[in-house]
């Protein structure tokens, strides 16, 4: 095992990107994720890459669009209000089938909101904040080590499927320090993108074009069909989740990211009261791990499912769709940057099971 170092989550994201072969970063400052830019400003010089501080999030995502079209592994990062501004670009990236990695270190909203951690961007991330029929792969790390691993994986997924892959973190993950072990990552084969605009030799290929516009109905429908086929493959092959203590549980708790860590501690608190609590932690928020939720909920021992989130109830809608009436689904959430305490969650579980 590689030596572990103590590092801040935001800096680990940046280091992971560099190790994954990303040499182009475009961003705009916003709390609580700006350390990523600070780190990139120095690290990209060392690595022979480029960090551009854009004039806006709108410009930053369009720089990403250009750099990705040109064949590069490329990253932009922001937090909630900035991610809203990038939505136009997300839709174009989807339409042009470009790989890109975006990190959203979520803060409380709506509006300018606050700078404290939240999970209120779940809908925006998983249902698409931009226009048109498209999806982004959304990964939800719960520790600094996982921030590293999933950031590297995000670049691989983005390239494999030619689509935007988002890391949905929150202010806690970005700001906290934890031990992390880095790995040597596989070198990138940049010749693997024959569709990219790289300049061309007439003897070798025709000129390439990158576009998201199709004026003819049949052409645009063909693009949409191609996208939907791709999304179907991703639903079959890329779903990830973790189940903890689920076998013969009385209550299944569903939670992602930072919030799942609080719920993990509740398992022990509940056990002391003789209540068996299991945890399902989605790691891919899209595609959503329906099967893992159903397999945990559809046990005769399970009385109910409780979803806990740092929002007013967003992932709970996907949990309800998955559970589909098999068991009652409850919700507990806090907003504004507040965190539910273990006791709050335990009290909710006790009220559900009547003990």
């Amino acid at each position: 095992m590689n030596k572990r170092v103590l590092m801040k989550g935001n800096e680990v994201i940046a280091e992971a990107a560099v190790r994954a072969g990303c040499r182009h970063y475009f961003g705009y400052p916003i709390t609580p994720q700006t350390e990523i830019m600070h780190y990139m400003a120095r690290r990209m010089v060392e690595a022979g890459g480029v960090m551009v501080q854009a004039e806006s999030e709108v410009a930053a995502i369009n720089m990403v669009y250009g750099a990705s079209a040109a064949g590069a592994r490329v990253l932009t990062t922001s937090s909630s209000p900035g991610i809203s501004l990038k939505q136009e670009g997300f839709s174009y990236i989807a339409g042009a089938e470009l790989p890109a990695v975006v990190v959203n270190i979520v803060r409380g909203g709506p509006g300018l909101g606050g700078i404290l951690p939240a999970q209120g961007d779940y809908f925006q991330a998983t249902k698409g904040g931009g226009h048109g029929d498209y999806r982004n792969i959304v990964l939800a790390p719960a520790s600094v080590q996982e921030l590293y691993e999933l950031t590297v994986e995000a670049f691989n997924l983005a390239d494999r499927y030619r689509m935007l892959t988002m890391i949905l973190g929150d202010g806690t993950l970005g700001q906290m320090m934890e031990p992390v072990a880095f790995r040597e990552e596989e070198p990138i084969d940049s010749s693997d993108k024959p569709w990219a605009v790289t300049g061309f030799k007439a003897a070798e290929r025709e000129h390439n074009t990158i576009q998201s516009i199709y004026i003819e109905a049949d052409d645009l429908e063909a693009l949409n069909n191609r996208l939907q086929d791709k999304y179907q493959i991703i639903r079959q092959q890329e779903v990830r989740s973790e189940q903890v203590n689920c076998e013969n549980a009385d209550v299944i708790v569903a939670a992602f990211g930072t919030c799942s860590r609080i719920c993990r501690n509740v398992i022990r608190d509940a056990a002391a009261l003789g209540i068996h609590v299991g945890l399902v932690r989605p790691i891919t928020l899209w595609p959503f791990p329906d099967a893992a939720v159903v397999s945990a909920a559809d046990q005769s021992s399970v009385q109910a499912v409780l979803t806990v989130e740092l929002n007013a109830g967003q992932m709970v809608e996907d949990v309800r769709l998955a559970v589909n009436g098999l068991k009652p689904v409850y919700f507990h959430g806090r907003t504004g940057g507040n965190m539910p305490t273990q006791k709050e969650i335990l009290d909710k579980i006790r009220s559900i099971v009547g003990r």
Partner: protein
Amino acid sequence: MMEEKVFTRTPGLTDKPFHYCPGCTHGIIHRLIAETMCEMGILETSIGVSPVGCTYNNYEYFACDMVQAAHGRAPAVATGIKRVHPNHTVFTYQGDGDLAAIGTAEIVHAAARGEKISTFFVNNAIYGMTSGQMAPTTLIGQVTTTSPFGRSADAQGYPINVSEMLATLQGAVYIERVSVTGVKQIRQAKKAIRKAFYVQQAGLGFSMVEILSTCPTNWGQDPVSALQWVDEAMMKQYPLGVFRGSEIEVKPEWK
């Protein structure tokens, strides 16, 4: 006696016929850019960025690698491309709605960064594709579908002189305004396009050529009077000339 072919389509353009209206000068401007790339031997190392507007699909016409951008974002997209391929020639082709309204921030900051790209800014004082709305470049008194009584300074403000504005930025090293209303003007426009590419290749900074253009369809004029209107009305607001970089000489070794 064998016939000698003295004029042919430039290989810088594809075989696809232009879709532009009769009397529109986009076709001339496309040809000038494409010819210049071929003459400079940079067609295969050039990457262009298409805008939103009448020329949204000029990626089908230019024979180099092309990227289609969101409305106004071409300079940001070009920035991303250029930072990946610093030795390639990267250009944007943008109209006055795209560049001077929705894309104002992107063009100003690409110029301010001295981004080593070339922008061809086609100014016809109107939104063409969406059927003749007022643009930031619409002249005072000009009738459009959204200024049906003529643009009034009081209600709708004044035209933006983009070249003069960008020429105030240090990173914008070469800025020239040209037109394509006659042979002499077309030859000057081509010289300016060539110079913009040379400035980029020499790594001097941002370059832009503003090209006054016609829109007979939305101006409600025939092609000849549209050209006259550029010469007589538009040039009063938008005088031709070099606003930055007149001292820069195109050096043979830049080839």
